[in-house]
Structures are given as C-alpha cells and as structure tokens.
C-alpha cells in the first residue's frame, strides 16, 4: 500500500471533532475569563472614547478662565457652583474639562513612547540576539548602562539637556524604556534562532533580514505585547512625573502631571484641585496594568490553566 494515495487513512486517525478554534478566539476567551483584565479593558476603552470625543463631551474650554468661580469645589461639597462638576482650579478653569482633554495627552504620550521604545528596542534586540558575538556584547553593555540609572533620574537629565517640553519628555522616556524591550527581544530571539524551523527557512534560502523579521520576530511577540502594555502605563506615569517636576508639558497644557504641579500649593485649602488629576492618573494606569497582567496570563503558556 502506498501512503500517498490513501488520505482516508489519515482522516480516520483523527476523530472528526469540532472545527479547530482559531488561536485568537481561544486567547480572547481566556482573557475574558479574567475579570480584572476585562474591567481594565472597559475602563481603558472608555478613556480612549473620552479622548477621541473630548471637544463634544467637555462642558467648557479647558483653557477658559471663569473669574467668578476661582477654586470652586466639586458638586457634592458645600459651596459648589453649578456647571462645574468637579470644581475649578486657582485660575477658574473647569477641572472636568481639563481632565477630559488631558486624557488625549496621556494616551498620546503612552502611544508615542511605547511605539518609539518598541520599534527601536525590537531592532536593537533582534540584531544583538541574532548576530551574537561582539555586536551582542556591545549593544547589551550599552543597555546595561541605561538600565543602571534610576529611570526618572535619567529621563530628567535627558530633558535637562535637550530642553523641557512634552515632545522631549516623551523622547527621554522612550530612551529610558527601550532597553527593556531590547533585552526581552534578545532573549526570545536567542531561544528561537536555533530552532529547526529557522534552520529549515535558512536552508530554503531565506536571507538574514527575512529570517530576523519574518521568521523569528513573529514568534517573539507574546512577551513584547505584554511589556508594551505595561510600559504604556509606565510612560504615562513618568510623563506625569516629569510634568510635575516642570520638565514635561508646560502650562497651560491640561496634562495631568502638569495639573498636579500647578495645584501643589492648594493641597491644604482646595484638595480637589490635586486629587482629581491624581485620581485620573491612578485609574488609567491601573486599568492598563490590569490589561497587561491579563495579557501576560493569556499569552504565557506556562501560566495557562489547560
């Protein structure tokens, strides 16, 4: 009997069960089973919607000053002014509107920083892990140097050198976060590059670039997605910290960290001016971290209950 002309034999050896579930659907089901991650996802999506439709949702212009309502408390506190749900700051600007517009900045910061850090980190890590040898040693020692500094301190120094401002702050944070991606990529690449399918692709004629980006990289993405999510919240937090220290976004930009900095002197007298931006940062970062944890559980086969 020839094996080739008897496909029935093959099909018989595999029971006709339900159609195989696509890996995406399977992952989604697993992710959705994690309540914390699901809540995080909902909150995050809400934040995204708020950021997109900010001009429609916000009751006032974020920069408009209401001179007759300086430091008005939020609606549930005695002395609240109608029309200012979360109160106003020292210049009479509506805090709710500023928070809504601030969501745009925070999400943009997260997105830009993570994209920058991810792309450079992947390229650097791929090169180091794939070629090994002195290239690897050189690249990883530079990454070690960056990692040796406390991240906020290094970002602060970088911003001090290239000048304060939102864009420079994002650049600095990306530089600080990038080694994490490089290390992660390098480790995954080193594990994958000696696998037989990579060898098979090489024998089939694939050149270095194709092997790196088409063959190996897609198999290293799992941990990178998780790291990207967690870095997203890290970036927001560090941008807020730089803003608070006066090195990030400059007033009157309604960036949450900058808002905190402006409100510092009113901690005693008008608590809401400090509390509201702080809460906004807390909630967003928490939501994203929950998503990240959920993704890690989903994408890491070792943590998966089978």
């Amino acid at each position, binding site marked *: 009997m020839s094996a080739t002309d008897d496909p029935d034999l*093959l099909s018989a050896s595999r029971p006709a069960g339900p159609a195989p579930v696509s890996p995406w659907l399977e992952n989604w089901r697993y992710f959705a089973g994690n309540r914390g991650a699901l809540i995080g996802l909902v909150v995050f999506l809400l934040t995204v919607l708020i950021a997109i439709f900010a001009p429609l949702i916000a009751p006032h212009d974020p920069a408009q000053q209401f001179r007759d309502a300086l430091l008005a408390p939020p609606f549930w506190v005695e002395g609240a002014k109608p029309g200012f749900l979360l109160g106003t700051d020292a210049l009479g600007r509506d805090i709710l509107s500023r928070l809504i517009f601030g969501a745009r900045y925070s999400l943009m910061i997260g997105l830009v920083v993570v994209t920058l850090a991810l792309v450079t980190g992947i390229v650097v890590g791929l090169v180091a892990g794939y070629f090994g040898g002195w290239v690897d040693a050189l690249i990883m020692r530079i990454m070690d140097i960056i990692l040796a500094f406390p991240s906020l301190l290094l970002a602060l120094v970088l911003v001090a050198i290239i000048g304060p401002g939102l864009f420079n702050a994002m650049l600095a944070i990306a530089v600080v976060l990038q080694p994490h991606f490089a290390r992660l990529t390098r480790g995954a690449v080193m594990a994958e590059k000696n696998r037989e399918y990579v060898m098979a692709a090489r*024998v089939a004629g694939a050149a270095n670039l194709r092997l790196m980006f088409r063959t190996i990289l897609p198999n290293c993405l799992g941990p990178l997605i998780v790291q990207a999510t967690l870095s997203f919240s890290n970036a927001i937090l560090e941008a807020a910290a730089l803003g608070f220290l006066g090195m990030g976004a400059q007033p009157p930009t309604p960036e949450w960290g900058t808002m905190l900095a402006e409100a510092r002197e009113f901690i005693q007298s008008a608590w809401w001016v400090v509390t509201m931006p702080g809460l906004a940062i807390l909630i967003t970062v928490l939501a994203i971290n929950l998503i990240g944890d959920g993704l890690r559980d989903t994408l890491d086969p070792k943590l998966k209950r089978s």
Partner: protein
Amino acid sequence: MSEPPVLETRGIVRDYVSGGGFGARRVVRALKGIDLKVERGKTLAVVGESGCGKSTLARIITMIDPPTGGTLLIEGREVDIARHGVSREMRRKVQIVFQNPYGSLNPRQKIGDVLSEPLKLNTDFSAGDRRDRAMAMLLKVGLRPEHFNRYPHMFSGGQRQRIAIARAVMVHPVLLVLDEPVSALDLSVQAQILNLLQDLQDEFSLTYVFISHDLSVVRHVADDVMVMNKGEAVEYRSRDDIFAAPEHPYTRTLFAATPIIDPARIRARVEAKATRAVAGQ
C-alpha cells in the same frame, strides 16, 4: 564520462571549540575525516549512537555549518561556505528534513505559506503559480486541500512530517538529507512516511542521506550503510554485505543492541502474565 556522484565528501573534519574567555579552551573533534560518495537515486544510511557526529555531518552536507577541513562536492562541484558562502542555486540542490516535526515548522505560518516560501525565495513563479504548486505537493504527500490554510499546531506528528518533507521537495532538490525523519513517530506512521519517501525518491529521482539509529528502518531503505562511532566511519559498505556479515566490532555491538520485535513472543509474554494474575486472585 560518467555522471559525477550527487554527493561526495573527502576527509570532512569538524571541530567544536568550547570554553574560551576565562575557562580553558577545549577543542572537540566531532568529525574525524569522513569520506563518502552517493550516486543519483541511491540512499546512503548513516547509523550510529547519539553523539557520534551524525547530525553534525548532516549540517555540513546541508551547508548550514562549514566544515573545519576537507572538501564537500555537490554534483561534482566544490562548495566552500566558509570562504565563498552558498549561492542560491547550490542552496536549492540540498534540502533537509529534521527529526522533530514539532520544531521544524514555524508555528505562525500557515501550511500553504510553509510550502510556497521555498518557491518564493528560489524561483520567479507568480503568486498563483506558487499556490498551485504548493497545493499539488500537499496532495502528493497525502494531505487534503482544506489543510492549506491551517496552522501547524492543528496537525499530528505524522502529518507535520509530511509537510516538512513536502517543503523540502518543493524546490526539486537533487539531494535530501533526512535527519532521523521517523524516529519521533510511532510505528504505524513510520511505515507510511517511509513509503512516502520511497515514492518521492522514485518520482523525482532523489538522492537520500538517511540518518538514523534504527537499524530495522535502515534495512528497509538503504542501499549503502555507513556506521559511525565517535566521529569516524568504522564501516561503510553495501546494505546486504553489512547486514549479512558485520565486520567491525562496533557494528556488531550496534546490531546486537537492536531490540527484536517478535509479535508471537510478546503475545506469549502477555498471556503468561494474564494467567499468573488470574491464578493469583
């Protein structure tokens, strides 16, 4: 003039250097001068225990690693990847099937793409042509059209090995290195894969270097047999000669170590056990 052999090696040596840096440098000689010659359409079986250099030899023949010394000739042309690299054309001529069917397929690549990638890299066929050829090959190795768009994790070990074989044959190589292609599969599937390999050999007049430690498989497929031990070829003769009268002591040890599968004997043992169990109650 007669056709040159598809594969010829002269005194292939391969050293591995370990240590360096702070530890003492140690050189391990994995291959100590291997000479072999395979004519078109023939199968050379390389047997030996694990660690004897079989897979190192496979990697050198497949032009993945350069040899430390010696010459490698494919269809009479010398290949020196350490100095000149490998041309696309030479790459195409030698393909490999790995032992582990679970590691040799890219988990993120659909079967159709697995099969058409070699064509994309080596030929100028249009996307439609590549697809048709990949589909034809899929059917030829005994899989079905609906498998084209599935991912490797949806297949059994035997099916995956069929895919790996199909991928290797896609570019019509002259030489196929089979690095223990059936040792990860169970017995019934082994036979199917061996039959498939035989059919493909006849159809494409393929030359095989079949690496194995399983002598019953070797007896089934080989024309010539080379027995390796510690990086040396201790015996290298035709299959019938070597199985009839193994000369080298190592070959004899190897043959003696092969378990004998005798259904009658197994059945007798199982029955005896059952009788004892019944008697014990």
